[in-house]
Every structure is written in structure tokens, then in C-alpha cells.
């Protein structure tokens, strides 16, 4: 009985949040004189309206989820890695180049690419971790700066030495991967590819690690009280570096599967413009770094994006507005409306208490 009440209470928060978010979005839509219902319908259709759209949402959720899972581990350990973008891009470009230039059968190219993508992303992230451990250079700063360096370096690689010059040579991109090295699509003609399996597998694995293994325990305790962890025999540097490698590696994998499963070549900007990194971070934070939660938040955030595309295609609501609605929804979903909040609203008309 009590458990059911608990469950209801914990559901109040997200439901209330989504409702308030949708309501605010409705005001925005109504303000520009569009049909609220129609717009939300298109949004829904664009995200989940048919099997095709559902799979595109999953495809889009794939890199978000992988990045989010990596960050979850780091965040739990109290390590704030802001460098997912750079790790993703560097992992992806290395993987792509290996898969293009490695003289081997397709499947080997693909596997080598995946391994290299994880390794390079992980190592790039590890470098920032190492700089913090060894030279006390704050991760928060180094990872943020490393993004610029990685993205620019990848851009250099595809504009100069490894540019695809077979066509008009006007775009900064690599050659296309051999078809045999592509990640298979899960359904023909649909966007979702095998990378989604990796993401799901990673989520389950991470759940298992966090929930059941000593390492998961150590990560958690380090995040809760680093001094306590150290006192108890946990090596904070080892855990931090492992966390950094894992988060960078998963970000690298995210970039790699996006290339191997969707673009089939590294195109300058194709991984940065969609803002996968920040979206991934939001997915983690919204799910409170819980791996299973991340599956849902990633799909939700991806659905906002594919839904916005649907709105763009099928209504006269301008694209910018779709992104405004998306932002508003995220804002409210992040809010902690609690049962108490609701009561307090009614009782006092709103005196808010800060977080201590």
C-alpha cells in the first residue's frame, strides 16, 4: 500500500512537469496563432507517429544515450566531464580513418573502427583526467577547452590530409566507408541501426555495474564523499581515471556509431551541430545518472528533436518556435515539482525554499 503511494508520489513530479511544459508550449503556439492540438499532434507524429518515425527517434537517441551513459558514470563519481563533444568527434574521426584505410575485410574494418573510436575518445578524456590528477588542472576547464581543440583538429584532418577529393571536393568530409563496414540497419529503410543495440547493452551493463559491483559502489561513494572513499581504501585517482576513460570511450563510441550507422563518413560539423553532447548531458542529469532512466530521457529528448522536425514539415509553426517549445519542455521537466510543491502552492501561494 505504502509502496503504491510512494510510486504515485514519484510519478506526480514528471507528469506535472510535462503537463506544465506542454501548457507553456501551448501558450507559445497559441501566441503565434497556430493550432495547439494540431501542433502537438504533429510533434507526436514526428516522434512516434508511425514505426518509421519511431525508429528515427531511436536512431537519434542512440548517440545521446551513449554519451549520457558515459557521463552518468563520471557524474556519479563526482567527476564533471564537459568534454563529451570533443571525445565524440575525436573518437569518430579516428574510427572513420581506420575503417577507411585499414586494408582488411569489412567486418574487421568495422570492429577495428569501433575499438579505435572507444579507445581514442577514452584516451582524450583520460588526458584531461590525468592533468587533473597530476597537475591539478580542473577538469571542468580542461574538458571544456579540449572540445575546441578536438573539433578543430578533426576539422583540419578532413579539410586537409584526409579530405574526400573524389567528388566536387567542396565539403570537408572523409571518403565514404566501404559498404561492408557499415553498421547494419535494424530494419531496412529505417534509420535505426545496430548502434542502438550497443546503447541498450551499455545501459544494462552500466546498470549492473552501478548496482551490483564493487566498482559501482566505489564510484558512488567517491561521488558522495571523496575523503570517506579515500579513507576506506578507494583509490580516487584510479576511479576518476576509469570514469573519465569510460565516459570518453562511450562518447567516442557514440560518434563512431553515428558515422558507421548513419552518415557512413565523417562530415565536418555533422556531429557537433545537432548538439549531441549537451543533449546527452541533459539526459544524464534528468535521469539523475540512472542508466535505465537514461534510456527514457534520451529517447524523450530525441523525440523532442524528431517531433520538432515533424512540426517543421507539416505545420506553419516556424522551426525556431519548435526549438523554443523543446527548450520550454526541457526546462519544466527538469523542475522538481513535488507533491509538496503542489500543496504549498495551494496553501501559501508560493514561498519557495532554496536547495540547501
Amino acid at each position: 500500500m505504502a509502496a503504491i503511494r510512494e510510486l504515485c508520489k514519484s510519478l506526480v513530479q514528471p507528469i506535472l512537469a510535462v503537463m506544465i511544459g506542454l501548457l507553456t508550449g501551448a501558450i507559445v503556439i497559441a501566441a503565434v496563432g497556430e493550432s495547439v492540438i494540431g501542433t502537438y499532434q504533429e510533434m507526436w507524429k514526428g516522434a512516434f507517429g508511425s514505426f518509421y518515425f519511431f525508429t528515427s527517434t531511436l536512431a537519434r537517441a542512440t548517440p545521446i544515450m551513449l554519451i549520457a551513459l558515459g557521463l552518468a558514470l563520471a557524474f556519479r563519481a563526482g567527476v564533471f566531464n564537459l568534454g563529451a563533444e570533443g571525445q565524440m568527434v575525436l573518437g569518430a574521426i579516428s574510427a572513420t580513418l581506420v575503417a577507411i584505410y585499414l586494408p582488411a575485410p569489412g567486418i574487421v574494418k568495422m570492429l577495428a573502427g569501433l575499438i579505435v573510436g572507444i579507445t581514442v575518445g577514452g584516451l582524450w578524456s583520460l588526458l584531461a583526467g590525468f592533468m587533473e590528477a597530476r597537475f591539478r588542472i580542473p577538469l571542468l576547464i580542461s574538458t571544456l577547452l579540449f572540445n575546441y581543440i578536438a573539433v578543430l583538429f578533426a576539422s583540419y584532418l578532413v579539410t586537409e590530409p584526409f579530405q574526400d577529393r573524389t567528388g566536387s571536393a567542396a565539403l570537408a568530409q572523409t571518403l565514404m566507408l566501404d559498404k561492408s563496414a557499415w553498421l547494419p540497419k535494424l530494419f531496412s529503410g529505417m534509420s535505426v541501426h545496430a548502434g542502438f543495440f550497443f546503447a541498450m547493452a551499455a545501459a544494462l551493463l552500466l546498470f549492473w555495474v552501478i548496482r551490483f559491483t564493487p566498482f559501482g559502489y566505489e564510484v558512488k561513494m567517491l561521488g558522495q564523499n571523496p575523503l570517506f572513499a579515500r579513507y576506506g581504501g578507494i583509490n580516487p585517482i584510479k576511479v576518476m581515471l576509469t570514469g573519465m576513460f569510460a565516459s570518453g570511450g562511450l562518447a567516442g563510441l557514440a560518434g563512431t556509431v553515428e558515422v558507421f550507422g548513419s552518415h557512413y563518413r565523417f562530415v565536418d560539423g555533422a556531429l557537433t551541430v545537432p548538439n549531441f553532447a549537451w543533449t546527452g548531458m541533459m539526459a544524464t542529469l534528468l535521469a539523475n545518472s540512472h542508466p535505465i532512466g537514461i534510456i527514457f530521457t534520451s529517447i524523450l529528448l530525441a523525440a523532442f528533436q524528431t517531433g520538432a522536425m515533424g512540426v517543421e514539415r507539416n505545420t506553419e509553426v516556424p522551426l525556431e518556435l519548435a526549438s523554443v517549445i523543446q527548450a520550454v519542455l526541457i526546462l519544466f521537466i527538469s523542475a522538481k515539482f513535488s507533491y509538496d510543491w503542489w500543496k504549498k502552492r495551494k496553501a501559501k501561494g508560493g514561498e519557495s525554499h532554496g536547495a540547501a
Partner: protein
Amino acid sequence: MTHRLEMKQMTKKYGEFTANDQVSLTLEAGEVHAIVGENGAGKTTLMRMLYGMEQPTAGEILLNGKPVSFRGPNDAIRNGIGMVHQHFMLFGEFSVAENIVIGYEPKQAGFFRRKEAVEKVRALSEQYRIPINPQARVSTCSVGEQQRVEILKVLYQGADIIVLDEPTAVLTPLEVKDLLQTIRNLAASGKSVILITHKLQEVMEVSDRITVLRGGRVTGTVSRHETNVDDLARLMVGRELEELSQRIPLEGKRLLHVDQVTVREKQTLLDNVSFAVHHGEIVGIAGVSGNGQSELLQVISGLRPVQAGKIHLAGADVTNKSVESIRQAGLAHIPEDRYMWGTAKQESVEENALMGYQRKPDYYRRGVILRDAFRQVVRGWVDRFAIKTGSRQLQELAGNLSGGNLQKLIVTRELGQETPLLVAAEPTRGVDIGAMEYIHQALIEKRNSGDGILLVSSELSEILALSDRILVMYKGRIAGELARSEATEEKISVLMAGGNVHGSDQRAV
């Protein structure tokens, strides 16, 4: 007649759990009123309600006969109630004066007049004879000084009622003496003091009346003249205290060997320290806090590197080894600051208990922690030490435990490691006398089973009661060593103050 303060039928519930059950209390002007009771009896909770930090579930507070209700500490402060918390509420980066005046700063056109603040604090410090350096940075102050800052802050805020929650738990004997004097001074100048403590001698020394709490209820209020330590103890614990077990004479091999260890960090913190702990021996380390005891323990447990010297544990060289490998070599450690080093407050009792066990073969198989097996063990600990965990039992947040119960949890966790060496810093800090007895008993038993214990305590009585040998630290050195038979409080005190005891030739093993 009206009392300065009257608390009537105060009740506080946390969910299903009742922390205070219809507690009533009066306080007069110029009175020192002690509240005693075992860990988790609800002392702190009662005071938090008085200070506006918790809202009572039921009950009434009357100030000078008038009912009041506080929505926050602000209201309490405005009504002349000040509280010095069990855990200081200070800003380490700020100066002493800044910490005292914060919230009521002297100002001119919005600008903070720091000079005036310093003057005011100096005047206040002289008025109440509480010595302090107003310009020192609080993070560089000793614990005793920090406590004086807290008391001055309360006085500065104009409090007539001053609540002190376990103020002596963290002080050295000398500092305790000063504090008790201060409390008397305050009472003499008309202030009322509520004092929470587990040390019954202090209660007898300083208080006018005493209220005893047990299980959230008042079991009695007595005047000091009508009672004595034993009666109080019985009221608190509900049973007679027992004698400690006999210590079996043991001639053990060397277990821990600290050899010419030096720690330097801007200044020398440990200077050529050498000593040993043998199997079946409790070595007590006495000393005024700040003389390197913390550093010594940190060095032994691997939390701080040494610049010179060697440390051997159970035959293995553990100098500058990782905490993990030192623990594996056979060390368990009760840390001196339970909140800083000993717990993760936002995690459950179970998670806190698990620290150090997560990779032990008994609880770890095929990559997975065996939670069920471990939970059984923790339940055993909780029973044995009567740890009150509240309604959620092992899933209660550690931060919600009362201070003493948390300490018990840490002690039992480290005892459970069953390592040959236990490093115990202030093992009974903040625990009630019943639990103290239990812990002392457990330490003696551990010793009798042939394990070694390195005990650091600011309680000389504790050192004297438990130690086979006593080392005294002064300015980062071992200033002297006393055998159990020859040790007295006087001799130790002299050594602690930097003096010399005849014939003590600094035998370091």
C-alpha cells in the same frame, strides 16, 4: 511564575518515528540546565525545534510567559536564543571577527566596517573573558578556538538563552576547563545556558538542574545537589554500569613499527617520530590537539605521504603505500572526524557500513557484491551496539542518525574488519556512557585476543583506562612514554605541556 523559557509537551515525529515525545522543560535566568541522555534520545532534536530549525509536530514554546513560534533560526535569534551546533557553522575562509558579526555586520552606507567589527569583537571577548584573535582566519584556528568563536557569535547576536550541543566532545581537557568557566561566567552575568553533554562529571561541575531524556521522553528533572554521577547514569541508561574486563597479560610480537617518520608541509608536522605497537597491546597517544596526532594517524593509514622514515605493519613495508594496500596488510581505522572522513551522509546506513567490505571474499563473488549476506552482518552490528537507525532501519540515511549512533556505526564497522591493528581516534567522541562502556569493552576484548590498538584520545581518562603504554606528543615529536603502571594524569599533563618527566628517556622502540 513565569520562566525565561518554557517548552511544553514538545513532540517531533519523523514519519513513523517519534524523536521527541511530549517533552517539557523550563529554564530560568542565570541558570545552567544540562540535558543528558543516551544517543538518539532526542536531545539535538529538541534543541533544533527551540532554534527554529525544525517545526514541532506538537507542543508549545513560551518565552517569558509569551507563546512564540519560530519559522527559522532568524526568528529564534531575534528572540534572544542562540545555538552552538554539534557541528560548527563557520566559514573557514573568513576571519574570526567576520564569522562573529555575520548577519549583524557594522556598516556604513552598505559598506562593511571591518575595523569596527574587529573592535566590537575584541570588546566582547574581553567582556565575557573569552580570549580570541579577531583577525585570525577561522580555518587556522584550533577546535577550541572555533568553539569560542561560535559562543561569541551567539553573544554578539544578543542571545539570553544559549544552547550548547555537546560542546566538550571535541575539546582538550584544558579547553574543557576554560569552557566550563566561561559557562559559569555567562550564567553569572544573567544568561541562561542549555548544555547537552555525555560527560556527567561536567554536568555535575557546572549545571544547576539536569533533565534526562530517554527514548524521546523525559525520565526526570533533578537539581544538581540532589544527584550524583551514578544516579544520573542509571537514569540515562536504565541499568548499572559494569566494570571493564580484565586485561590478560600478553607479550606480543611487534605489529606496527613507525621508524623516524618525518612529515613536512611548509612546516614540520611530524619530526622524527618512532614507536611500535605490539600484538596484544593498546598504545595510547595523548597530547594537546594540534601536536601532530592527526598527521600521525593519517600517515599510518596511508592518507598522507611521509617525507622521511619507514612504517612497517605486520612485517610489511607500508611506507607511502596506498590506503587499500595498508588496509589489506592489516589495518582498520576509526577516523577522528566522523563526518569528514567516516561517512557519506547522503547514503544509507548499509552503504556506509559496506565501506571496506565491498571486495572481501565473504561478500563478493563473481564480480557481484553479496548484499544479502552482508546485510545479515550489519544487522548483527546494529543489535550488538544498539544503534538506533530510525524507522527505515538499514536504509536510513547516515546523516539522519544522531551523532553518537553514527559514531557507533563507524566503530563497529572498523571492529568488524578484524584486522590485527586498529587505529582508533577518539573512538567514543559523542557517544553516551552506556555505549562508551561497550566500545571500551570491545577494544579491551580485541586487545585480549592478541590484536594491537593505537588509540588517540583527548580524554585522558580514556587513555588511562585503556592503554598499556602511553605516548605523549608535543610539537610533532614523541615527548615521552609512560608505562600503564607509572602513568598518572599529572605526569601526562606535564608532558603534554612540553615539560619533562624525570627519567623518561624517550625510549622509542
